[in-house]
């Protein structure tokens, strides 16, 4: 029973983070209709920003959110403006040119990171990295709990932003119907640029708050891109609420898989879920929840 509860807790804590990662992906997905395969690479960049700030300037990892998020927001906007948007006008046979482009961008980001920081594993060790507290017999990692609450705070403020502000409404309008939004006076090109920046900033936040308890190397982006993908499929394409449920489900599944099946099958569990969802609920949670 203790093992079960412990697994449950760690699954939920991980799931909150995954939700944040998935939300950035599904925002970009919803507005642009393409999958951003550079998502994990952007997270990796955010993590390196945190690592560099901590190592060279001694800034507390949680405070570097205020550096990594604006930095990635800018980077995301530049990527969208100068590499992805020009492709909309280019005439080509393959409609997936933008997706291929994100692969190219991910490769460039990864290799540039390798160039600067080398392939070695890096980590940020703080006084609270290993700290835990107990409720009953169940241990909670302080850093993971903090990460969970920050992720939840970001998710909630994102919701407020999307539902209540003008900009948020424009983003949702563009996601629902690009042409109609254009006719209503939404500058959809500007919206795509902002959305990509926002998605990058969200995933950078996820990377930053993960940093005190995780390790870092240039290729870390790949697994996280795949996770974000499984989350978006689970949650339903382009649904932000779905992304949160998807994140929680994946977090729980991975935790239980690691406890009861084996640590080595991490990726397999994600794929298994992915296939089951495709077979039994093709629309993801979006279809079940009607959100």
């Amino acid at each position, binding site marked *: 029973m203790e093992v079960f509860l412990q697994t449950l807790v760690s699954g939920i804590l991980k799931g909150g983070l995954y939700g944040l990662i998935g939300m950035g992906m599904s925002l970009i997905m919803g507005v642009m209709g*393409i*999958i951003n*395969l550079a998502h994990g690479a952007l997270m990796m960049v955010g993590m390196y920003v945190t690592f560099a700030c901590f190592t060279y300037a001694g800034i507390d990892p949680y405070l570097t959110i205020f550096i990594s998020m604006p930095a990635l927001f800018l980077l995301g906007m530049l990527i969208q403006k100068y*590499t992805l948007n*020009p*492709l909309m006008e*280019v*005439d*080509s*046979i*393959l*409609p*997936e*040119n933008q*997706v*291929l*482009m994100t*692969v*190219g*961008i*991910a*490769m*460039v980001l*990864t*290799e*540039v990171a*390798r*160039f600067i920081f080398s392939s070695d594993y890096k980590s940020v060790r703080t006084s609270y990295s290993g700290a835990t507290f107990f409720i009953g017999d169940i241990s909670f990692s302080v850093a993971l709990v903090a990460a969970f609450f920050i992720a939840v705070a970001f998710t909630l403020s994102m919701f407020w932003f999307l539902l209540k502000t003008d900009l948020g409404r424009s983003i949702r309008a563009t996601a629902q119907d690009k042409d109609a939004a254009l006719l209503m006076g939404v500058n959809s090109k500007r919206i795509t640029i902002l959305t990509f920046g926002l998605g990058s900033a969200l995933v950078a936040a996820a990377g930053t708050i993960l940093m005190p308890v995780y390790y870092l190397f240039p290729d870390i982006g*790949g697994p996280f891109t*795949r996770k974000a*993908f*499984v989350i978006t*499929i689970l949650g339903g*394409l382009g649904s932000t609420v779905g992304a949160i449920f998807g994140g929680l489900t994946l977090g729980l599944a991975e935790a239980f898989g690691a406890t009861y099946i084996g640590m*080595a*099958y991490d*990726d*397999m569990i*994600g*794929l298994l879920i*992915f*296939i089951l969802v*495709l*077979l039994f609920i*093709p629309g993801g949670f979006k279809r079940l929840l009607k959100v």
Partner: protein
Amino acid sequence: MRKYPPILLLVILILFPIVVRDHYHQHLMILVLMWVVIGSGWNVIAGYTGQVSFGDAAFFGTGAYTAGLFVTKLGISAWWGMLFGGIAAMAIAFPFGWICFRLRGAYFALATLALNEVMRHIATVWESLTDGMVGILVMQTFVSKVPYYYIALGLAVVSVIGVQIIMGSKWGYYFVSIREDQDAAESLGVNTHFYKMLSLNVAAFLTGMAGALFMNYMGFIDPEVVFSLHDISIMAILVGIVGGVGTIYGPVVGAFVMVAVHEFFRTGFFGFFKGIAALTGSDMIIVWAKYVMQAHVLGFGILVVLVILLLPNGIVGDWNLIVKKIFPVKTRRVTG
């Protein structure tokens, strides 16, 4: 007019190992021919059918491991893998396509990416069958590279002609109709699921055969090599898009360019840096050269970005455009 260049190219390729005798260039040409096969496979599923695959390494590795396991587990020649490697890759492609062709576009692409990772994982974890990270070592049949060269050439010719025949047949038109507009194709009575499966299986068969060839030729494989995302799957995409998506000879040109670019980086701009370092006697340049040699993936990444931005249809696909840019006056004739 259009008939002669391929024949000329074939003649040059047949004469190549007779004229060029050093092993290094023969080795490079064998790799080029292998990539022609893989690129043709990728082109069928992605270029013609429009279902971009990021997981060619899954089929490539399956083919290679089939050939390798024939030796280590069954004790028969790895050459049997040339046939059965393709069939084994199809055996992977079939259930995968059955499930994942419910996805469209980028989602399918990501599913293939996941397949790639899972296959690598299986090959790594299932140690009783594959020996995991230890890999499989097989004695090469021939000492000389020439037999391998002609086998690779035969395979490449068969795959290019095979793709040409398929694309000229009814199947080919169905494939293209799915790429252009899947819903319209469906409404006109094309069984899109069936034809997408067919296309994927053709691609898997070709890629699996190339994998078996790789096993036979290299003599050693491990999961990191044959299921590599960057060195196989992304490279296959690059061969496709650099050469020209949806063209018969695109993969041929693409394979040549990509292997050349790969070597270019690996050898430090064909020894350019070493030469400079020797001339100036500077240690800095040697250090820099080391970085450049490791940076072939970075070069690939930049190449992807540039090619997609500037030549979205590849060298063969945008040939008229290139010719117009270089010789603005000479081409008065409108070619189409």
